[in-house]
């Protein structure tokens, strides 16, 4: 406080005197009194000799004085223009008694002198820089040299200026002058700390702070150097940088070294840095212990990385800049063992960033940087464990800052490398140091990068490596509390979804449950959502693995399956469907290979195969109980194919069996998909497998599918699958069809029964009579349809029953058109008449539009369209036979 008040007082006093003297000085100028002007000017300048002011206040005073000196300069310029030789003025001001005022005046005149071109700039500048040595007080000297630098700024004999020439000098004189001024300024600046003092720590600190405030006075010189037009990279390398670095290294001042190195990086151009990297890095290793070399190096590397990114190929590879950086970094780490892990990692991160931008695609460099980190961490861990033996058995763990840096290190190269990351052996070893959650994050980023690159995994080693890297995405952390929480959140969320499904069926309890579930906290929902996204991302991985060799492809899938199986079971719903469906896709390819191989074997092989399959069909019960037995029963090797279709189906069976207890509907659907795939193999040999899959779906239906919505969906899929199948034995097909029809008839709700039984009718009329493998049982078709009509009639209460009649009518029409002999025009005419009656009835009652007019209109349109269709068919001329048949229907 006291100091501040004093400062204000001192400054005010000095300012007052400056103003006073300036006033008299200007008065003398007006009177063309040169002597008086000089006297008052030097009196004014004498105020700068004060030792009472802090740098801040001194700076204020200095600025005020400089304003006044501008008048002096104008006055001198005026004199020169009037014809007064400047040399006279130059001599005259030197008679001033005090050194500081004298030098300020001399510099002011010198500016005019150089500008007048009456003397060579080179000589005058040399003169000034030498004479300025007369002021050895650090702060006063620094400000004086700053004035010199400022006045001479536009009067240097740089290329393209009027001051350049035989006499005036060259750019060499210009930079020599700045260099000398710089080294003098720097010397003064460094000396500030070494001034005699009471050696109070507080004093020392204050002084360091003051020096910080004055650093720009030194740095300005570097800016002037960088602004010289005539300096090229070669000159910079030969003559300028070595001198700067020498000065920096030899001053042995921590503050100066830190500041000046940073200045050099900032001030000079990228090309200059590239050309002189070796010099610069060599100096870096010679700096004082406390200088933050890491920050300096990071500064250069980051700067050049940005430059290289914007100007590809700007850094010639033959310079081996990466090696230079790497050597420098290693040397630094070797010489300064005091760096913390995070500092080491930061440094390596900059190195990696440099390699990534300057040499994209150079895996060796990236691996080296990652390897350095891994080594550093391994050392740290080793040291920690050694200690842990004595102290406490805590596992080695990075702090949050370290985790952040390593995570950044590992994610940085992902976007541009994607799958090539697998070629970096140190990537995986560094990954190990991260905690589970961070590894998962890196894994997710890796997967995304791989998908974005659209690269394919095509060798086993890569598949295994990649899966190993994303293990934290697949699994929960072993014995982690967090993981189980996630699982719970997910389960809760699924319950919520179940509730909504219920709500759809107007189940009030279910609806309220879901509402309750929704409000159990958004963070849990967020977690569950994130988990779902991650698992879906993982599922896509299955389709990134591809090999032209089916055996190899299957191996990929097996490795993925092994990993996915270790996950918590509630994640199977995301990862198993892709695996199962990819295996089924592969079946088609394997089958083609098998067919090609079998083709050589001859035909009779297939016949015996079919016979055996038929005989085993009898023991269906046994097959259902021991599915694997059936699948693995006949191990018949096809030459050249290691993993045959049979093996693939067995894998599918196993996967679905482990999925079924947790996700019955999903497993049922996939069993049916598998059945279709087996049937598509188009060989009798696979009909038993197909049968087994359908049976498994049926068992699941009986045991697990309980709500009516799921039942209808399952039945539709089951009927659809059977209709697609072409290779079942007739007895098997018959048994399955009968069973589905029974399921349909046993549904709880009448409208469901009606619809499903009508759908099931299709099971008994498959294919045209002239097609091989057709199956026609017209009697049961009409049985089903009749039963549907009867059931529809029972749904009187529901508004649906008109719709149901029209639906069934359309089924009748389908079979009539197909030529099913039991579905005759008699039935159709009767049904149409029956529906017409019902409509009339409804119209009489006056109910018609009362019950939901839009729904009624829809049904009307449906019915009208159906009748239109019959009428259209009657007039169809291109199929006379069909037209005749339709004509028999009375509408």
């Amino acid at each position, binding site marked *: 406080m006291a100091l501040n008040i004093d400062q204000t007082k001192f400054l005010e006093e000095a300012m007052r005197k400056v103003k006073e003297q300036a006033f008299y000085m200007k008065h003398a100028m007006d009177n063309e009194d040169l002597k008086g002007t000089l006297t008052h000017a030097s009196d004014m300048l004498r105020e700068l000799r004060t030792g009472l002011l802090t740098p801040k206040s001194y700076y204020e005073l200095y600025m005020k004085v400089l304003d006044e000196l501008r008048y002096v300069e104008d006055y001198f310029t005026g004199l020169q223009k009037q014809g007064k030789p400047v040399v006279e003025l130059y001599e005259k001001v030197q008679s001033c008694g005090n050194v500081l005022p004298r030098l300020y005046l001399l510099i002011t005149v010198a500016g005019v002198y150089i500008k007048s071109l009456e003397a060579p700039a080179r000589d005058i500048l040399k003169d000034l820089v030498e004479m300025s040595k007369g002021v050895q007080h650090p702060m006063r000297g620094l400000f004086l040299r700053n004035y010199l630098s400022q006045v001479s700024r536009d009067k240097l004999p740089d290329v393209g200026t009027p001051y350049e020439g035989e006499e005036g000098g060259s750019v060499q004189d210009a930079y020599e002058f700045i260099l000398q001024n710089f080294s003098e300024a720097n010397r003064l600046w460094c000396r500030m700390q070494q001034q005699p003092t009471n050696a109070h720590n507080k004093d020392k600190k204050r002084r360091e702070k003051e020096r910080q405030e004055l650093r720009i006075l030194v740095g300005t010189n570097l800016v002037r150097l960088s602004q010289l037009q005539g300096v090229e990279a070669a000159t910079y390398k030969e003559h300028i940088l070595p001198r700067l670095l020498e000065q920096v290294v030899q001053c042995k001042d921590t503050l100066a070294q830190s500041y000046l190195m940073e200045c050099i990086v900032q001030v000079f151009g990228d090309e200059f840095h590239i050309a002189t990297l070796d010099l610069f890095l060599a100096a870096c290793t010679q700096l004082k212990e406390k200088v933050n070399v890491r920050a300096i190096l990071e500064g250069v590397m980051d700067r050049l990385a940005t430059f290289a990114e914007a100007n590809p190929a700007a850094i010639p590879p033959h310079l081996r800049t990466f090696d230079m950086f790497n050597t420098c970094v290693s040397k630094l780490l070797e010489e300064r063992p005091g760096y913390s892990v995070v500092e080491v990692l930061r440094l390596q991160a900059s190195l990696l960033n440099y390699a990534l931008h300057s040499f994209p695609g150079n895996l060796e460099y990236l691996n080296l940087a990652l390897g350095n980190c891994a080594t550093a961490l391994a050392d740290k861990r080793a040291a920690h464990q050694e200690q842990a033996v004595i102290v406490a058995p805590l596992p080695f763990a990075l702090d949050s800052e370290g985790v952040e840096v390593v995570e950044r290190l590992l994610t940085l190269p992902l976007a541009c490398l994607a799958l090539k990351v697998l070629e970096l052996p140190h990537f995986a070893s560094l990954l190990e140091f991260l905690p589970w959650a961070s590894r998962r994050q890196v894994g997710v980023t890796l997967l995304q990068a791989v998908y974005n690159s659209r690269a394919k995994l095509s060798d086993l080693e890569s598949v295994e490596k990649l899966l190993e890297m994303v293990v934290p995405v697949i699994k929960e952390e072993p014995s982690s509390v967090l993981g189980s929480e996630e699982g719970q959140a997910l389960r809760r969320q699924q319950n919520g979804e179940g509730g909504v499904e219920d709500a759809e069926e107007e189940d009030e309890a279910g609806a309220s449950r879901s509402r309750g579930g929704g409000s159990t906290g958004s963070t849990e929902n967020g977690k569950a959502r994130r988990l*779902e*996204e991650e698992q879906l991302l993982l599922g896509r991985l299955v389709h990134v693995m591809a090999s032209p060799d089916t055996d190899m492809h299957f191996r990929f899938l097996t490795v993925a399956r092994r990993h996915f199986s270790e996950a918590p079971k509630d994640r199977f719903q995301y990862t198993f469907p892709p695996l199962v469906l990819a295996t089924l896709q592969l079946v088609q390819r394997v089958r083609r290979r098998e067919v090609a191989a079998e083709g050589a074997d001859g035909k009779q092989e297939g016949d015996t195969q079919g016979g055996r399959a038929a005989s085993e069909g009898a023991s269906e019960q046994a097959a259902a109980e021991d599915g694997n037995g059936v699948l693995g029963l006949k191990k018949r090797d096809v030459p050249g194919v290691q993993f045959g279709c049979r093996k693939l189906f067995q894998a599918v069976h196993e996967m679905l069996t482990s999925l079924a207890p947790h996700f019955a509907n999903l497993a049922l659907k996939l069993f049916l998909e598998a059945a279709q795939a087996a049937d598509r193999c188009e060989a009798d040999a696979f009909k038993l497998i197909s049968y087994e899959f359908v049976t498994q779906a049926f068992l699941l239906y009986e045991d697990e599918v309980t709500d009516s919505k799921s039942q209808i969906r399952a039945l539709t899929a089951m009927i659809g699958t059977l209709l697609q199948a072409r290779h079942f034995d007739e007895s098997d097909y018959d048994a399955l069809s009968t069973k589905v029809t029974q399921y349909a008839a046993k549904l709880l709700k009448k409208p469901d029964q009606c619809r499903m039984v009508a759908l099931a009718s299709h099971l008994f009329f498959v294919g045209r009579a002239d097609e091989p493998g057709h199956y026609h049982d017209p009697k049961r078709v009409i049985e089903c349809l009749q039963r549907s009509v009867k059931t529809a009639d029972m749904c009187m209460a529901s508004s649906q029953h008109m719709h149901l009649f029209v639906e069934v009518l359309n089924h009748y029409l389908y079979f009539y058109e197909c030529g099913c002999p039991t579905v005759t025009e008699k039935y159709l005419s009767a049904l149409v008449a029956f529906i017409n009656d019902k409509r009339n009835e409804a119209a009489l009652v006056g109910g018609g539009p009362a019950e939901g007019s839009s729904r009624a209109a*829809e049904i009307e349109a449906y019915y009208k369209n159906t009748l239109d269709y019959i009428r259209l068919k009657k007039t169809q001329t291109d199929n006379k036979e069909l037209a005749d048949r339709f004509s028999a229907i009375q509408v």
Partner: protein
Amino acid sequence: MAEFGELVLVLGDLHIPHRAAAIPEKFNCMLVPNKMQHVLCTGNLVSHEQLEELKALAPNVHVVRGDMDEACPSSLPASAPFPDTKVVTIGELRLGLCHGHQVLPWGEAAALDGLARELDVDVLITGHTHKQQVSERGGALVPEPGQHLGSILEPGGGGGGGGERRCPASFCWQCRGPRSCATCTRRRSRVPWT
């Protein structure tokens, strides 16, 4: 062509990540926002992410439920599950949208015809069979262009034409791809093909 009409993107059975890692690149690069006015999806998106992507493409996105959507607890927005069928009116056309696994036997034109009658639509768009076909029962058959991922359907005459221009002026078959197709069945009785 004076009136270009509104562009409709028809696609379905994406099965990501069940059957594929991503939409084939060639097709994906055409999925640019604000090009189409409508997206009609026959279902089996299977994951939430895909739905979000579709929603970013056009102001009107219509999705119906596929068979795998039913089976996977994760694929449906729990708050608003996709319906089995949907009727969308674009210009003067009534378009029926249905995945098709509910219509038996699968992919059979006679059965799909029945659904078109039920929904009372001019054009019925279905998927499930993973085959690309446009058929017109009893009339000339539009050549089946093979396996494609999707189609862009442009009902002609967004506002200018009379009855003559009600039918689709063209089907722009887009990109090749192994799966995810949409079948369009069109009812003959409604509007004559040109």
